[in-house]
């Protein structure tokens, strides 16, 4: 209980304090051509035996993965200070880094840890940020991600997403009678993978609740498509919709109380909303074509969805209490599975680009489409909660892998998947109030 209190207190203090506001000296180039050079000096260790975790290595890897930073190789560091007082700034100017992080990992006698760090402008020798975060042994990794978030936000002005999570579906022995489907949740860097749910039948369409505490998904465990909502912490789940026919494509409303979903009452897919607690169902579309893949606007008033009423799949929008749908994509003959950017200005979609299914973003104000990926069968785009990156599924060597692309298309990465066939990544919302 004591430990919990101290963690909550730490989190609250962080929220209240926010990053120190000061003159932002470091100009960030968004391109991969000019990543900002930073040095994350190996952290000091104050405790028995070996340090349980290499904080600096994880922070450096996080920053590099953003595509905005290049971390200095440890072999090129002329000194290894662990506190601000020990820094000789001339030696850091010589290796041409713009920013410098030093710190220490400490263990207290009761077994808890504290991560202490300082971020400096290497050119001016000024401290930009300094924190001490108490964390439990189990939260060491996530605490280190939080450190990365704070550094990232101080340097870029954009909240970091290193302490968020990603859910996806993995399959082994796909296409065989002994196939295994798993719903997996991991840290945003792919580590700390945990299986939420496992089944011999397909699992589809994981969708986070706005508070990041629940995931809705489709499971065929009873031979038909049904929608479940599972609470991450406890593993408890409810069967939210198992109506006759298709129950699919769940998407949480911004208040977390309703799902938009797809049902087929007469053999034809249409969009509905469902008040989960009261099981109140509202029909949103009624058209003899495929209507599916609904997603809510941030204010909860609008639903974006896929419909092939024009003869091929295109994106439409409609009021979340119904009304007349309005078509919003006109470029190309296949635009489907919309996901709204956190600022509400863009939709990530799957777009058929000269025969290839690729991730594209639609600028809602201008109606223009920009293709971001280069695969043959890319799908399931999902925005990071800070809007900077999109994670999606692609194929490599005959199996599914995950990849990320920056929303401007300049930074692209492939995530290793350890040989599993993976698909349908879903990026969590921010998991701490900022």
């Amino acid at each position, binding site marked *: 209980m004591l*430990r*919990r209190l101290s*963690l909550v207190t*730490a*989190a609250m203090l962080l929220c209240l304090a926010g990053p120190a506001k000061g003159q932002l000296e470091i100009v960030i180039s968004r391109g991969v051509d000019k990543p900002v050079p930073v040095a994350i000096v190996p952290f000091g260790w104050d405790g028995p035996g070996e340090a349980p975790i290499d904080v600096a290595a994880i922070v450096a890897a996080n920053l590099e993965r953003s595509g905005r930073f290049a971390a200095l190789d440890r072999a090129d560091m002329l000194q290894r200070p662990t506190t601000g007082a020990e820094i000789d700034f001339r030696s850091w100017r010589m290796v041409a880094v713009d920013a410098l992080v030093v710190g220490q990992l400490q263990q207290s006698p009761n077994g808890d840890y504290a991560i202490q760090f300082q971020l400096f402008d290497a050119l001016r020798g000024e401290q930009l940020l300094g924190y001490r975060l108490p964390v*439990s042994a*189990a*939260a060491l990794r996530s*605490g280190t*991600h*939080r450190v990365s978030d704070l550094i990232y936000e101080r340097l870029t002005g954009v909240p970091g997403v290193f*302490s968020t999570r990603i859910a996806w579906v993995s399959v082994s022995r*796909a*296409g*065989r009678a*002994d*196939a*295994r489907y798993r719903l997996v*949740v991991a840290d945003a860097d792919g580590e700390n993978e*945990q*299986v*939420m*749910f*496992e*089944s*011999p039948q*397909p699992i*589809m*369409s994981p969708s986070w609740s706005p508070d*990041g505490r629940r995931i809705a998904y489709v499971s065929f*465990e*009873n*031979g038909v*498509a049904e929608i*479940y909502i599972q609470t*991450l*912490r406890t*593993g*408890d*789940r409810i069967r939210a919709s198992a109506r006759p*026919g*298709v129950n699919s494509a769940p998407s949480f409303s911004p208040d977390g109380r309703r799902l938009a979903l*797809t049902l087929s009452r007469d*053999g*034809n*897919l249409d969009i509905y909303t469902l008040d989960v607690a009261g099981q109140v169902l509202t029909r949103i579309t009624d058209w003899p074509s*495929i209507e*599916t*893949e609904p997603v809510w606007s941030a204010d909860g008033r609008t639903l974006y969805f896929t419909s*092939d009423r024009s003869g091929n*799949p295109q994106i439409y929008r409609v009021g979340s209490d119904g009304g007349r749908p309005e078509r919003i994509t006109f470029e190309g003959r296949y635009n489907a*599975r919309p996901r709204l950017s956190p600022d509400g200005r863009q939709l990530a979609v*799957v777009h058929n680009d000269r025969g290839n*299914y690729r991730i594209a973003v639609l600028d809602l104000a201008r109606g223009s489409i920009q293709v971001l990926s280069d695969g043959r*069968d890319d799908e*399931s785009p999902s925005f990071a909660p800070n809007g900077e990156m999109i994670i999606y599924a692609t194929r490599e060597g*005959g199996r599914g892998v995950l990849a990320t692309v920056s929303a401007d298309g300049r930074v692209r990465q492939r995530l290793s998947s350890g040989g599993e066939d993976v698909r*349908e990544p879903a990026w969590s919302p921010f*998991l*701490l109030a900022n």
Partner: protein
Amino acid sequence: MMPKRTVLLLVFSLFLAACAGRSGTAVDDPVFDDAVTGPGTATRGVGDRDFGRGDAFGDDVARPGPQGGVLDSRVIYFDFDRSDVRPEYTEMLQAHGRWLAANPQARLRLEGHTDERGTREYNIGLGERRAQAVRRVLLLQGVDSSQLVTVSFGEERPAVIGSDEEAYALNRRVELIYVQ
């Protein structure tokens, strides 16, 4: 033969029962939380039921439903992005339709599938549309609607793994599965 099938059905129904009663698995909630569970608990309650979905296996296991001639054909293939039933399947579907009309206690499950191209949820729609197209043909043969159930798996259960035209063509299908 019968004992083998009985065992198979028993395994399958046990499996279904296991599925129905299963709850999900805990995953620790957000970051600064000491209720973080160890990796060992992540697979709680799902680790030891490692058997498949209980399909028929081996040539000696008779499939449920009518046997012989065109009635042994149980798969209808579709063109890319299409859900109309090609004329070559008319004779086969008429035979199944006549048999079902004559055996009103029989139940047929129509499982619609697509190839891997396009989005997964849209493909659920396309698979459902294909299953419905076959259902309509059977209803015209005098089959009662209560005898038929449609399920779409979209691209989730391919018959063939592969990303070429040949695999795609084999995966765009509706399977006729007689249920006992």
